[in-house]
């Protein structure tokens, strides 16, 4: 019976074209759009090195100085040492695009284009994000060899010496969003079993099969579909759009497994936790997923850094941020503590949604239908 329910649920859901569109095509289209946008940035980047001034004070931080020198070597920027007065002069003569007063205070010239401004901010975000990673590692392991970690060559390059493009993080957020989009499957499957939600639910409830077992079989079926769709999108982003997702297959698979399960359990929870119609519930799902994606840095990685800095606990319960951060830490850090911490938080969120769902479906009979 378990196998039959699994097979039938799989067959029904895999033919649901609307959900397939939102979980595959929408994500693929967004990925293509991202690629096109960032390709333009790459082109500009290739031909024009950005002249950036930095204050003497900020360059006293040897690690920050090392970071700036490293990206200067890669011809992203041309570094000029300056002070506030000199910087104003250089801005007037249009000789610099930005002035880094300190890590958190970057002045951008009035004539600096939006694209150049974004590049400068992305470069700074990269530093701040990595700095936050080092701080976390230090908290977890005070005896770690800092010199090894703080070599920016290892910081921004993996063992194969391949550079990690900062724009990859946007795609990581997209993968995170796609995994949480599995909520659509979770929501739909609960409609198949709850008599107060649909006539199919009534039919299943009055049948002689154990409801808990059939829900479990169906949840496993939707989880399977979610994993397949996530892997498809990941494959598309990695192989077709050539976005670097690293080569830690075990870690990537673990992220997909946990990320999609979080999505499915989130969907089941939305389905049973309120008495609104399915359109409203879908709206809740889209709204929350979009909010999570936004705070995970889908529109600007700076948002994620701001959250990390001021309300770090928020992103600990933001599954899209956890998936993004998991992929990022995998790419730079060989699945270290930060990666596993993200995975543990994903498990905690899933467990909360599963228990929440169980709480709402625990009743044997309904008060009203």
């Amino acid at each position, binding site marked *: *019976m378990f196998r*039959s329910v699994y097979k*039938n649920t799989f*067959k*029904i*859901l895999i*033919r*649901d074209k609307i959900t397939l569109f939102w979980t595959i095509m929408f994500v693929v289209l967004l990925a293509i759009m991202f690629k096109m946008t960032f390709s333009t940035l790459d082109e500009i980047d290739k031909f024009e090195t950005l002249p950036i001034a930095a204050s003497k004070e900020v360059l006293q931080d040897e690690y920050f100085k090392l970071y700036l020198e490293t990206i200067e070597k890669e011809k992203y920027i041309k570094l000029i040492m300056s002070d506030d007065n000199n910087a104003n002069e250089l801005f007037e003569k249009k000789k610099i695009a930005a002035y880094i007063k300190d890590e958190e205070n970057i002045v951008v010239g009035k004539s600096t284009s939006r694209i150049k401004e974004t590049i400068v901010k992305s470069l700074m975000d990269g530093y701040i994000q990595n700095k936050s990673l080092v701080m976390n590692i230090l908290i977890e392991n005070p005896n770690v060899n800092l010199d090894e970690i703080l070599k920016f060559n290892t910081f921004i390059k993996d063992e194969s010496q391949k550079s990690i493009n900062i724009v990859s993080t946007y795609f990581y957020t997209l993968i995170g969003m796609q995994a949480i989009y599995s909520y659509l499957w979770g929501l739909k499957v609960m409609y198949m079993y709850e*008599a107060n939600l*649909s*006539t*199919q639910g*009534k*039919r*299943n*409830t*009055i*049948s*002689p*099969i*154990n409801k808990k077992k059939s829900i479990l079989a169906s949840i496993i079926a939707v989880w399977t579909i979610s994993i397949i769709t996530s892997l498809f999108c990941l494959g598309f982003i990695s192989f077709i759009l050539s976005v670097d997702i690293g080569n830690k297959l075990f870690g990537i698979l673990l992220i997909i497994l946990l990320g999609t399960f979080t999505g499915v359990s989130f969907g089941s929870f939305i389905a049973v936790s309120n008495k609104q119609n399915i359109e409203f519930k879908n709206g809740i799902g889209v709204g929350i997923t979009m909010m999570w994606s936004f705070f995970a840095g889908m529109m600007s990685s700076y948002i994620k850094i701001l959250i990390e800095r001021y309300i770090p606990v928020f992103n600990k319960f933001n599954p899209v941020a956890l998936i993004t951060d998991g992929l990022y830490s995998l790419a730079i850090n060989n699945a270290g503590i930060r990666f596993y911490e993200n995975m543990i938080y994903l498990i905690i969120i899933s467990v909360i949604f599963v228990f929440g769902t169980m709480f709402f479906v625990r009743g*044997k*009979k*309904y*008060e*009203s*239908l």
Partner: protein
Amino acid sequence: MENLIEVRGLVKKYKELIAINNVDLDVKKGKILGLLGPNGSGKTTLINCILSLLDFNKGSIKICGEEMTPESYHIKEKIGVVFQDVGVFEELTVYENIDYFCSLYINDKEKRKKYVNGAIDLVGLNDFKKFVPKKLSGGLLRRLNIACGIAHKPEIIILDEPTVAVDPQSRNNILEGIKKLNKEGATIIYTSHYMEEIDLICDDIVILDKGKVIAKGTSEELKNSIEVNEKIKFDTKKLSQAVLKEIKEDKNVIEALYKDGSCEVIYKKGNNNLLNLIKTLNKHNIEYEAIHLSMPTLNDVFLELTGKDLRD
């Protein structure tokens, strides 16, 4: 005769509203029981309580001599339900939908195949096996809904308003199918607000209004229990108030109405009602044509018991 379903003192409240008010019900094995009542009379609520889908405040429900609970899987095996709302999967074809719901009861693949084809035959969907539901007309969709509920050959079949919004051809097909299922041994509960259907196919009838059983019995018993015995209707171009008054003065006449060239006279039980009427008309040289004589309907029963029409 053995009762397959026994409901005793059932009360179901939605806050202040009493949806089911102390209902007793017996469904005899091998019979078709009709639950008749206007919309909102409590028919579907009663069915949902019997199926243990809805919680109820008081009373007991026994099926096959056992208390019905959500875990009564061995009882559930014997029941097939056709809900009022069509409950099929848009992603599956006609055949796959029936097979899906049948698979909840029948594990054996070969047996299931036979049952599914049997159900398709019964509802006349042979030409539409590979159609998806959205390609079917309203009537065909209703037939599919029925096939999904009865494919596993249940002993007890509950049909909740299965003919709502269907074309006459599908309605006949559905009613024929129900009679056939009953002949094959199924015990059936059939709810409807269409009195003609109930009258046509049901052995026993329970009339519900505002959650209460207001009458029960066979169609004959119910019709005999009311004052109205027969109705005579005739067409005439002119009928004066004096003649109408004289017709009304007959001791057996309950009511006589003349409107738009047509006169309807409702009689109590009595002999020679038609003869007396014709005598009166001839006496006044009234030319009449097309005299129709009809027996009381379930609507008359309902009208007499509640003072309102079934379709109100």
